């Protein structure tokens, strides 16, 4: 018997079922998501990345940083991420956090730590140092396997005094300095902009904290220690 058309239609239908579930369904539910406001301060969230941060995101994509770094914090019952202080207290990642990202680079593997809140832990100078020399004693990561990215930096002779951007290296010949290129600075600006610390409707602040944080702290804390909050 000729099963060709039967197989074709049947296969098409099963494909459509899974398409409706994982493509159409999510699009209907969250495809039209809009900017929302933080709780309790009411600032707009999330904010569109522009300029250096936007270019930095392009470099993050081009060099596939997502091969080793995820950008998602799971709820406490689904992974030890909160326990490892990768998120703010009780604050796991939700759809809203990625509203304006293209592409969304959640990542699949954690060879390196999660970066969803990298900006809240690290400042740009530290990120630049990590990019140039991940095993720098100052970073206390002697066995890091992160590759260095020397092509994002240039080594130059000090002519008009030391550049304020120069990296704090001591194993470099005297009279020279290593300064980040614009690309490196943009990438650092992007990584430093990664933070999911504001509480929003889907992930409200933990109850005990409410009276303390009410109208007292900024929605996007500038401090380097979100996990301690």
């Amino acid at each position, binding site marked *: 018997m000729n*099963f060709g058309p039967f197989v074709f239609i049947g296969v098409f239908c099963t494909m459509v079922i899974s398409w409706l579930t994982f493509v159409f369904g999510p699009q209907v539910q969250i*495809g039209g998501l809009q900017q929302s406001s933080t709780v309790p301060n009411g600032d707009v969230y999330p904010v569109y990345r522009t300029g250096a941060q936007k270019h930095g995101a392009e470099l993050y994509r081009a060099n596939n940083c997502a091969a080793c770094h995820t950008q998602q914090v799971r709820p406490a019952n689904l992974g030890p991420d909160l326990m490892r202080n990768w998120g703010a207290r009780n604050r796991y990642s939700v759809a809203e956090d990625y509203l304006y990202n293209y592409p969304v680079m959640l990542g*699949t593997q954690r060879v390196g730590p999660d970066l969803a809140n990298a900006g809240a832990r690290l400042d740009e100078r530290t990120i630049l140092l990590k990019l140039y020399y991940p095993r720098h004693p100052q970073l206390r990561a002697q066995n*890091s396997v992160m*590759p260095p990215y020397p*092509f994002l930096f240039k080594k130059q002779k000090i002519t008009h005094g030391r550049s304020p951007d120069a990296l704090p290296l001591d194993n470099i010949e005297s009279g020279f300095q290593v300064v980040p290129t614009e690309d490196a600075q943009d990438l650092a600006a992007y990584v430093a902009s990664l933070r999911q610390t504001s509480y929003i409707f889907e992930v409200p602040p933990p109850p005990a904290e409410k009276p303390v944080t009410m109208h007292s702290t900024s929605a996007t804390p500038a401090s380097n220690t979100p996990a301690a909050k």
Partner: protein
Amino acid sequence: MNATSTHPSNTRADIAVGMESSCRLPLLVLFISALSWLLLATLFGLIASLKFHMPQFLADCPNLTYGRVVAAQTDCALYGFALQAGIAFVTWLFVRMGRTPVASPLVLTIAASFYNFAVTIGIVGVLSGDSTGFQGFEMPQYAAWTMWISFIVMAIVAVLTYSNRDEQNTYPAQWFGFSALFWFAWICATALLLLLFKPVRGVVQSSVHWWYVHNLHSIVLGFVGLSSIFYFIPKLIGRPLFSRQLALFAFWTLALFGSFGGIPNGAPLPAWIPAMSTVGIVMTIIPVVAIVMNLWNTVRGQHQRLDSTWPLKFTYVGLMFWVIASVQLIVGAFPTVSYLTDFTWFTVAQKNLWVYGFFALTMFGAMYHLIPRITGLEPSAKLVSAHFWLTFVGILLSYISLLVGGIAQGYLLNDAHNSFLQVLSAELVGIRVSTLGDLLLVLGTIAGLLNIVLLAVRAASRELKIVNA
């Protein structure tokens, strides 16, 4: 590569075997290019693996940073090797089982050349920083569309061959092969449109992306591999398939449940989406059991014959890897397990076993069966043996070390007293051992490629002699 192959001479009955010689040129082109891409993929894998021994290795070259090399490896393996080998096998299967010549060897060859051109542009794009950022779908838009269109043309040739068939009865192997072609055309169109051409907003991208990657592995590669298993195991063991009904049941349940999945538990999506994904993956236990039962009963009492020929050996080892990888996927879908294993080397080990273990081995088995039939020449047995053992030991070593490393990573990460770097030191043992496996995979692939190229050269020189005579 084209130069080494023979002219498509359908009429020359003095060479090779009937209908099957009609696909000699396109199949040699497809298999040689597929193996070349696999070699490139394993080489990229080796480079990536070496970076765990010396992170500064090739660090000065922006094109060969770890992230780009890993992306190139994935794409070479999936698009360069897997889809190409898959379409070659499925086309041959339709020719063989339908007892009809391939619909248009010339169009198939031209489409295959375009396909390879597109993949080349895509990999160059990925290495030069044009990756899309969607893991497993990194090829930039300018390459991906050409690749998709060339694939469609090749699939049309295969489908025309299928519908020209002389033998009206169809068999499980054909359903699997036929569906895989359609499935890829559809999912790739969705991914192209909704991820690259007119991207959807926010994490809907992730849902589409995960769905695409899961379907590509589980259904497209899975079905092609199973197609080969369902054809060769009964055929070469010399017994009919135990139950056609059971195969039909497994086919439909696998199409239904196998296409659900890929969304990690804890993804920043509405909770029902990862839940549906988990349910789908767990339900694939039904077709897995059905397929194992079916094939077990087919070979029952004839186990010793599984070792009798190389194609059969490749195929049944591929089947064993399919079972292991499927079970691992199911186990890893439970939230209690994925709590520890998600984002570790555990999932990488599973994907590697799926592509380089299950899929690649079934395709090699098919290749060593059909190449002698289409060319009338026997490949070197020594090289086939080297190909088998190097690939088998290589993937096993790399799989086990990454699996153990991944489980260790998951357990240690769960204890906040272990610093991230302490966890890294522990998992690094596994990653570094896997480098040896990656090296063996490279060597095995060289043996396989060399064998087929030498055979194609022999076929070409014989053709020249006939022309000159």
